[in-house]
């Protein structure tokens, strides 16, 4: 029932104050702020050569360990200071966004595809394949991913591909579990039963009837996983098992500054801040998306 019936002034009032109600939700700070941070990171990664003031690999030994511009002894030439080889910290952070962004995008594509496929198959077909799939999923969720990633780094040698593989190897499990749960609810829905009655093949039902209905949870989980992937990627880089030098990564920059923490705190501080900011934005955006699309999924 429309509460405005019999109260024409309410309708007028509402329409005057909210001319485009649908756009309002995008103007909230918990949507705008994270999106701005993520867009800046995306632009920094794509246009790094245009934005970065210096070549991230260029070493200038005369400019070693220069503090940031706003600290005594710093100069505006290096806004966030330089590291022990005289490389510009700001430029390296800008270039480091490429690794974090590239790994996140690839891992999300791989894990969501595998996880969704397995989740839909297991949830819809049921039976022994489903129960064994769920046991594998449970175990995958309980394994500390970083240990497997370190094992892979030793076997394959550290590289961009190794990092993506290592994070993806266990990363599909949350998708499989979530999507399977959704499919279990959908498989007895009227529209699925009707599709079966008119003789749709299982493949067609899964693809054209069930899949479109799990896109919302899929989107929410993918957004929420951005932060987690970046945290794991940077941790691997910190431990020396990530994308190898000389490619600048946020995690390895923090590691570089570890031994110089008593003299040059800025080397570790700013890359870590960049990680925290991006992860925070990813988590906030995921929460916002979940509240908008599917508030039931509060637990993920």
């Amino acid at each position: 029932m429309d509460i405005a019936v019999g109260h024409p002034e309410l309708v007028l009032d509402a329409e005057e104050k909210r001319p485009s109600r649908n756009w309002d939700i995008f103007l909230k700070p918990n949507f705008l702020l994270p999106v701005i941070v993520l867009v800046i990171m995306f632009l920094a990664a794509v246009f790094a050569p245009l934005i970065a003031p210096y070549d991230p690999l260029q070493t200038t030994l005369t400019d070693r360990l220069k503090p940031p511009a706003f600290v005594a002894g710093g100069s505006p030439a290096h806004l966030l200071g330089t590291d022990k080889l005289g490389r510009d910290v700001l430029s390296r952070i800008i270039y480091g966004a490429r690794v974090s962004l590239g790994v996140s995008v690839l891992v999300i594509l791989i894990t969501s595809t595998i996880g969704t496929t397995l989740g839909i198959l297991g949830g819809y077909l049921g039976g022994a394949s489903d129960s064994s799939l769920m046991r594998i999923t449970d175990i995958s969720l309980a394994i500390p991913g970083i240990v497997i990633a370190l094992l892979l780094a030793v076997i394959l040698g550290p590289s961009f591909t190794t990092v993506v593989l290592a994070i993806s190897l266990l990363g599909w499990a949350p998708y499989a579990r979530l999507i399977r749960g959704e499919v279990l609810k959908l498989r007895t829905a009227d529209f699925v039963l009707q599709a079966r009655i008119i003789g749709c093949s299982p493949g067609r039902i899964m693809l054209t009837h069930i899949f479109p209905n799990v896109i919302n949870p899929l989107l929410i989980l993918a957004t929420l996983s951005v932060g987690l992937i970046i945290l794991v990627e940077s941790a691997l880089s910190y431990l020396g098992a990530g994308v190898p030098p000389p490619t600048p990564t946020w995690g390895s920059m923090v590691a570089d500054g570890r031994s110089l923490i008593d003299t040059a705190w800025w080397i570790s501080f700013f890359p870590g801040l960049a990680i925290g900011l991006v992860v925070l934005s990813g988590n906030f955006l995921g929460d916002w998306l979940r509240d908008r699309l599917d508030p039931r999924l509060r637990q993920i």
Partner: protein
Amino acid sequence: MGRQLIIRLIQTFISLIGMSLLIFILVRASGDPVDLMRTSTTTDAEIANIKEQWGLDKSYPEQYWIFLSGMAHGDLGKSLIQRRPVTTMIGEALPNSLSLGLLAFVIGIGMALVLGVVAATRRDSWLDNGVKFIAVLGQALPTFWVGIVAIYIFSVYWQLLPTSGLGGPANYVLPVLTLAFFLMPGMMRLVRSSMLDVLGSEYVKLARVKGLPERTVIWKHALRNALIAPLTAAGAIFAGLITGAVILETVFAWPGVGRLLVTAVSGRDFPVVQGITIMVALVVLVINLLVDIAYAYVDPRIRF
């Protein structure tokens, strides 16, 4: 319950076989593991020697069998760098990891319980918002960075605590607290949300109507049932504990299993990495088995 326990034990055993197979395949998929050990100083004779020692000249099923029986005998091979059995090296590092992990676990989970319950009972108060804020920060800031910033503040700037390594009780403060801070947020969110569910239930209302003091209602009646949901997450929390320990032991130069693993990775000391992976996998399976049993015990409706 006895029959289900046996089924569950068999399942765990099958999982263990599956996991060892996975590790075996991962290791062999990359080609000859001996090639990984080749450095500029290795001679062909040494390589042939290692191959024979490891049985790498045999067929894959035979190799897998050797690998399995070695594991069953507690033989995880020898370190390539230190030339000592991997089990001995793990044994030396394990006590340091356990003391760090246990302390952090008790503090982190204890704090999570108290803060989660208090936040749930005073929903939307400044305390609740503060707890949510800590949870959000704890889940977003990279652990290794938090550790380094803590070193900067407490060891470099204020010079209150040692920066790293093993020593007196003061050496424990920073690693334990950062690891606890890493563990806390997830558990806190779980306790808070499951406590909110329970507080709205009928039997909590009944307990209040009966005139029980609010403290008994919350900490005895409600909390007991609110703990069932976080218990299922125990496996994930344990995985988090290991992840955090690997990172923070490296940050604080703490001579535990995590640092042993990372040093072995950078030195490409393959048997050590493989041995620690197997050990972690084993512990993970046992923990999950125990959690399942505890779960069925706490909530009798649950059957495997």
